C-alpha cells in the first residue's frame, strides 16, 4: 500500500513538475534566478535572503544601514534584502527556505510553530512593543478602561490580540465597539472611530507632521510584552554549519546596522530616503521623526547591558506570559534561541 502510493505519487509528481515547470517558464520570461549554491566556503560569502515584513523605510533602517556599511559582507554573507508589504508572507518564506532570516512578530511565529512550522527566534529588534492606543489630542482616550463606550479602530488581523489585552485588564469588551481599519489612520481623523490601534513609531509620527496632534499610550503599560520585528530562521538552518554562520552573520550585521542608526537617526533616515526608498520618494522629515521614534524602542537599559537585539531571560518570560494570555499553547521556551546572541556578544555589548 505504502509503496504503491509512493510510486503513483512520484509519477504524478514528475508530471506535475513538468507541467508547472512549463507554466513557470512561460511566466518567468525574464527571471532566471541563479541557483544558490549551498556550498559556501569560509572565504566566499554565503548568499542569503533577509525578508522584511514592511516596505523600505526607517522601520528597517538597521538592516539597510548594515548593507550600506558593508556589515553583511564583513560577516561573511552575500545579502539580498527583500522588502515586505501589507500581505507579505514572511513565515512561509522562511519555513520553506526561500529566505534564510525573516522579520516578524513573536506571537505570529509562535502560532506558525504550533501549526508545524520549524521556526526559531534568534534576536529581538523592538524591545518594547510599539502597539499603542492612539486618539485625537482634542478628544483623548487616556486609559484602556476609557475605551468602554468608545469606537476602537482595530485591524482585522489584530482582533484576537486586542481581545486578549482588554480581557486581561478587566475592560468590558462588550462595551467597546470595534471598527475595522487598516494601516491607514484616516478613520480616526475622519471621526469613524474614537481610538485607533497604532504603532507608536508610525501613525502618531505621520499625523503629527500633518498637523494632527494625538494622545498615545502603549499597550506595554497593560501587560502586552511582546518583542517586535524579531529575527527568526528555521531550526534546521541552525543545524547546518554554513547556514548557521550565515544566520549569525545576519543577526550581527543587523545589530551593527541598528547601532549606527541609533547613533545617528537622521543619517539613517537620510540613507533610507536616498537608497532603498528612493523610488518611493519618502518624506525626509517624516522618516527622521520615525527613525528617532524607534530609538527608545530598540535601545533600552537591557540592551545597554547585553547588546542590541538581546533576548534576556526575564524578557523571554514576559513574552511567554503575554502569549499564554493570548491562549497560545505549546513549548514556547523552545521558540527562543539565544546561542547566536551569546556568540555575537561574547566580548561585551558593543560591536565594532
Amino acid at each position, binding site marked *: 500500500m505504502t509503496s504503491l502510493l509512493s510510486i503513483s505519487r512520484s509519477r504524478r509528481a514528475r508530471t*506535475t*513538475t513538468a507541467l508547472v515547470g512549463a507554466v513557470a517558464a512561460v511566466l518567468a520570461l525574464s527571471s532566471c534566478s541563479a541557483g544558490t549554491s549551498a556550498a559556501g566556503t569560509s572565504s566566499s560569502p554565503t548568499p542569503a535572503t533577509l525578508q522584511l515584513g514592511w516596505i523600505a523605510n526607517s522601520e528597517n533602517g538597521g538592516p539597510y544601514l548594515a548593507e550600506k556599511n558593508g556589515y553583511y559582507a564583513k560577516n561573511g554573507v552575500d545579502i539580498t534584502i527583500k522588502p515586505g508589504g501589507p500581505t*507579505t508572507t514572511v513565515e512561509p*518564506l522562511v519555513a520553506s527556505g526561500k529566505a534564510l532570516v525573516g522579520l516578524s512578530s513573536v506571537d505570529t511565529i509562535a502560532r*506558525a510553530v504550533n501549526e508545524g512550522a520549524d521556526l526559531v527566534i534568534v534576536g529581538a529588534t523592538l524591545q518594547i512593543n510599539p502597539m499603542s492606543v492612539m486618539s485625537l489630542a482634542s478628544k483623548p482616550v487616556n486609559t484602556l478602561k476609557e475605551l468602554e463606550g468608545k469606537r476602537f479602530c482595530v485591524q*482585522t488581523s489584530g482582533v484576537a490580540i486586542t481581545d486578549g489585552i482588554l480581557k486581561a485588564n478587566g475592560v468590558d469588551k462588550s462595551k467597546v465597539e470595534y471598527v475595522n481599519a487598516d494601516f491607514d489612520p484616516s478613520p480616526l481623523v*475622519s471621526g469613524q472611530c474614537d481610538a485607533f490601534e497604532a504603532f507608536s513609531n508610525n501613525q502618531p509620527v505621520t499625523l503629527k507632521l500633518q498637523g494632527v496632534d494625538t494622545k498615545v499610550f502603549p499597550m506595554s503599560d497593560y501587560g502586552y510584552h511582546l518583542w517586535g520585528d524579531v529575527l527568526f530562521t528555521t531550526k534546521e538552518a541552525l543545524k547546518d554549519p554554513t547556514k548557521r554562520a550565515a544566520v549569525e552573520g545576519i543577526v550581527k550585521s543587523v545589530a551593527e546596522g541598528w547601532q549606527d542608526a541609533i547613533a545617528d537617526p537622521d543619517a539613517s533616515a537620510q540613507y533610507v530616503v536616498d537608497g532603498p526608498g528612493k*523610488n518611493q520618494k519618502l518624506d525626509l522629515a517624516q522618516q527622521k521623526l520615525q527613525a528617532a521614534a524607534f530609538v527608545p524602542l530598540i535601545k533600552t537599559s537591557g540592551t545597554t547591558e547585553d547588546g542590541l537585539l538581546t533576548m534576556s531571560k526575564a524578557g523571554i518570560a514576559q513574552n511567554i506570559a503575554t502569549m499564554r494570555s493570548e491562549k497560545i499553547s505549546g513549548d514556547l521556551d523552545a521558540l527562543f534561541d539565544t546561542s547566536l546572541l551569546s556568540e555575537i556578544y561574547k566580548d561585551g555589548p558593543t560591536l565594532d
Partner: protein
Amino acid sequence: MTAVPMPRPGGFQRLRRLRFLPPLAVVLVLWTVAALLLAPIRVVPTPWAVATAWIGDLSIWPVNILATLRNAAIGYVAGNALAIVLAVVFVRVEWAERVLMRVAVVTFCVPLVAITPILTVLFPDDVPKQILAAISVFFTTLVACVLGLRSVSSTMIDLVRSMGGTEGEILRRTRVKAMLPSLFAGLQIAAPAAVLGTILGEYLGANEGLGVLLVQAQSAFQIPRAWGVAFTMAALAGVVYWGTGRVGALLTPWVGKEVSTAVGQDIQAEAGLATARNAGSAVLGLLGSIAVVVAVWWGVIAAFGLSPYFAKTPVDVLGYLLSDSEAAANRSVILDGLLITLRDAGLGYVVGTVLASGIAVLIVSSAGAERFVMPIAIVMRSIPIVAMTPLLALVFGRGLGGVTVIVTLVTFFPTLVTVATALRSTPALACDVVLSMGGSTAQVMTRVRLLYAIPALFAAARVAVPGAVAGATLAEWLATGEGLGSMLVQDYAASRFDALWSESVVIVGVSVLLYGGIGLVERAVTKRFEMRGR
C-alpha cells in the same frame, strides 16, 4: 462604403475634440466642493493638492509605472492567451468545457490569501505578481471568448455545414468572426483587472511599483499622493482599455452594421446548450472537475514538497470539516460566516447588475453618457478597494451599505462592458425593421437590443456572481469584520491554515455551485425564447 470627404468647419472639429471637457468640469467642481466641505477630516484632498503632489512626484513615476506596467502586461498577455486558446478548445471539444470550465471558475474565486504564500514560495521575484495579474484576467476573457464563439447563429453554421464545411472551417469562417466583438469586450474588462492584480501582487512586497507607492502613501497619511497614485493606476488601465477598444473597432468594422436576416435568431445561440445533456454526463463532468482540481492542488504540494504548515491538502480540509473531533463546531462557524457572505454578495450583485444594465442602456443610447460614465467606471474599477475603503466607509458606513457598495464596484464594470457590447452588436437590420415599422429608438432598445443582450447578461452573471462573492469577502475584511472574508484574514494572521483552507474550499465550492446555477437559469430562459421564436 465610398469615402466621401465631409467638409467640416475646422472650428467645429476642434470643438468636438473638447467634448470631454464639460463632464470633466462637473467632476472637478463636485470634487472641489467635497474636498472643501470635508477639509477638517482630511479624507478628500483638493484637486490642486493632488496635482501638486503628482507633479512633485514626476521623478519617480517612470520607474514605478514601468514596474507595474511590465508585470501587468506579462500577466495580461499570458492570462488572455491561455483563455483564448482554452475557449477555442472548449468550443471544439465538448467534454473539455464540461470538466475545465469549473476549474476556471476556481481560479477566479479562490481566496488569494490562501494561495499567495504558495505563489511567493514557488516563484521568484516578480513572477507571483505576473501570475496574480494573469489570474485576474483569465476567467473573464475565457467567458467572453466562449460567449463570442457561441454567438454565431445556428443558420450560419448549418449553411457552412450544408456546403460541406468541416468543423474547422466553421470555426474559422463564422465563429472567429463572431467571437471578435465579445473578445475585445473581454480584453477591455481585463485591462483594469490586470493592473489591479499586479498591485495586489506588489502588496506582497516589492522594491518599486504603484502598489508599493500606494502602501507608502497611505501608511504615511500622504493623501494627495495616494490619490495621485490611484489616478495613475486608473489612467494606465484606461489607456489599455481605450487602446484595446480602438484595435477592436478596427478589426471588427462590421459590428452593429451587420446585414443579417435573422431577427431574434441569435437568442438561439448555443450558449449553455452544450452543457449537461443529461444527468449522467453532468455528474461525470462534475466529478472530472473535482478530480482535476484535487490533482493539481495535491500535485503542486507533493511535487514541491511544500511545508504542511501552510500548504494544506484535501485530506487536511476534509479532516477539519468532517472527521476531526471539533468538525461539527468548525462547520457551524463556517456556515454562519458563509450565510453572512452570501447575503453581502447577493445584495451587491443585484444592485451592481441592475445599475450596470441600466447604465449600459444609457451609454448605448447616448455617446455623451458614455464619455461621462466610462472614465469614472474605469477609475472605480482600477483603484484597489483597500485604497478606497476609508472614503467609501465614511460615505456609506461600515455596515451592509458599505459592503453593498464595494461588491457593486466589483461586479459593476464587467457587467457594464459585456451588456453594452451586446446591445451594440445587435444587427442593424433587426433595428431597422422596427424603425421602418414606425417604431421609436426606445422601442428598438426594448424590443430588439435587450433581447440580444440576454445571453450577455448571463455571460456577465458568470463573471459577476463569483466576483460578488470575492468582493464580499474583501469588503468583510476591510469594512465590516464579519463573514468569511474577515475569518480568512483572522485565520491567516493566526497561522490557522487548516481553517483558512477549509473556508477557501467552501467559498470556491459555493461559487462553483452558483456558477452552475446560472447555467440552469440560462437554459430555462433560452428555451423560453426559443419557443416564442417558433
